[in-house]
Structure formats: C-alpha cells, structure tokens
C-alpha cells in the first residue's frame, strides 16, 4: 500500500515536472541601438537608421553540439551566429549593416532535456559505463546586408 502511494506520488511529480519543463527562453547579446552608435557593423532586427543601398541577403545556419545537457560547442548559441558569423559575412560583402535580422534557435534544450542528459551521464558513471549524450543544435539567421549612402 505504502509502495503504491510512493509510485503515485512519483508519477504525479514526474508529470508535473515534465509539464513545467516544456518551455525555454534563450537570449542573445544586444544588437545596435538607434541612433547608430557608429561602431562596427550595424545590426538590427528592424530597418536602417540611414539611407542605404542593398548589397544582398544572407541566410546562415549555425551548427553546434550540446554536450551532456551542459556545454554548447560550436555555433549552437544565438550570439555565435548573429554577432559572429553574420558580422563576418557582412564585412566580407563590404556592408555597413545587416538589417531586418530574423533568427530562430531551432531546438533549444528545455530544462527537462538538460536534466535528463546530465542525469544519464551521472547514472552511466555510477554503473561503470560512462555515456555522454550529445544533441545537434541549429540556429538559423537571415538578414539584409546594406551599405549606407550619403550622410
């Protein structure tokens, strides 16, 4: 009877935990403000602060790996793709800014997934068969590369 009660409690706790852990919020560093602070490539999810000429468009799909639910390796985070690769591409094309940036972290790990991956490492270590889970991570970023014209 007592054992049954424990199982019920565990099931309810697991269900509650699973439902609570369905959401995740990921964040990246700041882009450029307005007016243009004039430092490096201007980055904005909106329009341009100055008249411009469009040089082209870009879509970048950053790839990285999440190891054991703890560490992100490669361009698995928003910052690596937006402020790293996107700026690099814009500079190569001779652009001054990337405007109308859109981004999507395609499969961010929810707290439940992170805990599950970390616990499998721990349980693997306890049984003497260490097992490190890895998860492919993708971040897609698109934008319009422009060159400022006039003053």
């Amino acid at each position, binding site marked *: 009877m007592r054992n049954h009660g424990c199982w019920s409690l565990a099931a309810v706790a697991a269900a509650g935990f*699973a*439902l609570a852990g*369905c*959401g*995740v*919020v*990921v*964040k*990246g*560093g*700041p*882009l*450029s*403000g*307005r*007016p243009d*602070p004039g430092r490096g490539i201007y980055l*904005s*999810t*909106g*329009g341009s602060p100055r008249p411009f000429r469009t040089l082209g468009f870009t879509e970048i799909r950053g790839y990285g790996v999440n190891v054991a639910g703890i560490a992100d390796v490669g361009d698995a985070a*928003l910052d690596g793709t*937006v402020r790293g690769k996107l700026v690099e591409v814009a500079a190569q094309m001779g652009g001054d800014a990337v405007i109308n940036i*859109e*981004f*999507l*972290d395609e499969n*961010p790990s*929810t707290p439940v997934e992170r805990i599950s991956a970390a616990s499998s490492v721990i349980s693997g270590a306890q049984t003497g068969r260490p097992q490190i889970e890895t998860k492919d991570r993708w971040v897609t970023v698109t934008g319009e590369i422009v060159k400022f014209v006039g003053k």
Partner: protein
Amino acid sequence: MRLLLAVSAVAALAGCTTVNTARIPKGSQPGELFVTTGDLKEPYTSLGIIQATRRAPIFLGWIDAGGTDLDDALADLIPEARNMGGDGIINLRFEQIQYPPLGRALMVLFFFVPLPGEVNVTGEVVRLGAPGYGRPPPGAPAGQRRY
C-alpha cells in the same frame, strides 16, 4: 461507429481553417512593457535578442497540457524581457504549429498518438532612449553609462 460519426460531423462542421490569437498580458500600470511586431522610430538601446520556445505533446487533438500556444510563449517572454530591464519588445516574430479541426478530430480516434505541439516567439528587447543618453543599464553603478 457512433464515435466515428460524431468525429465526422465535428470535422464537417468545423471546416479547415485554423485560427490562433494571442492577447498581450495587461500590465498593472500604464507605461509597462510594450510588445510590437514593428520597428521603433524613436531612439532606443538594444538590450539583446530573445526567444521563447515551448514544446509538448497535444493529447486527443485538443488537450494542450504543456501550453504550446502563442499566449503561453508570450507569458514566458514578457517576464524575461522585464528582468533584462527592457521597456519593450520590438520586431516580434512568431510561429506555432497549427492543426486543422479535421486533424484534431481524428486524434480523438487515434488517441494513442499525441500531436507534437511547438511554438516559437522571437524579438529584440529594447530600452527607450538613445544609446549613451538614456538611463544607465540595470546593474550599472550610478552615474555610469554603457556607451
């Protein structure tokens, strides 16, 4: 047989158009965080980009216990933007997996197959005021500006 007829009737009456709407949670005071899909013409300081994702199975076509709709994603996003010290979220983009009523009705029959539910909302958190002229960022010592 009766269940099949009922499901067919629901499917026939419901049509194939799916509509999802989200209402911005009302702030308790005027001047609280604003959310827009548009740009901002006024000077602003970017505090960072942000994304809320919710993923969970939908049971029996309609039971979305994990909350994978736009309302729930916005409810996740807004407190985080407030914590970042933002006045608003601009250039909001959203995407939610939608299922037509027929598909949902069929899932009552195939009750053992949950539908995958997912919603993504992205945006840029901003503070009103030009970089270098606005209020100091949260956590910065008094009298110091970021730029």
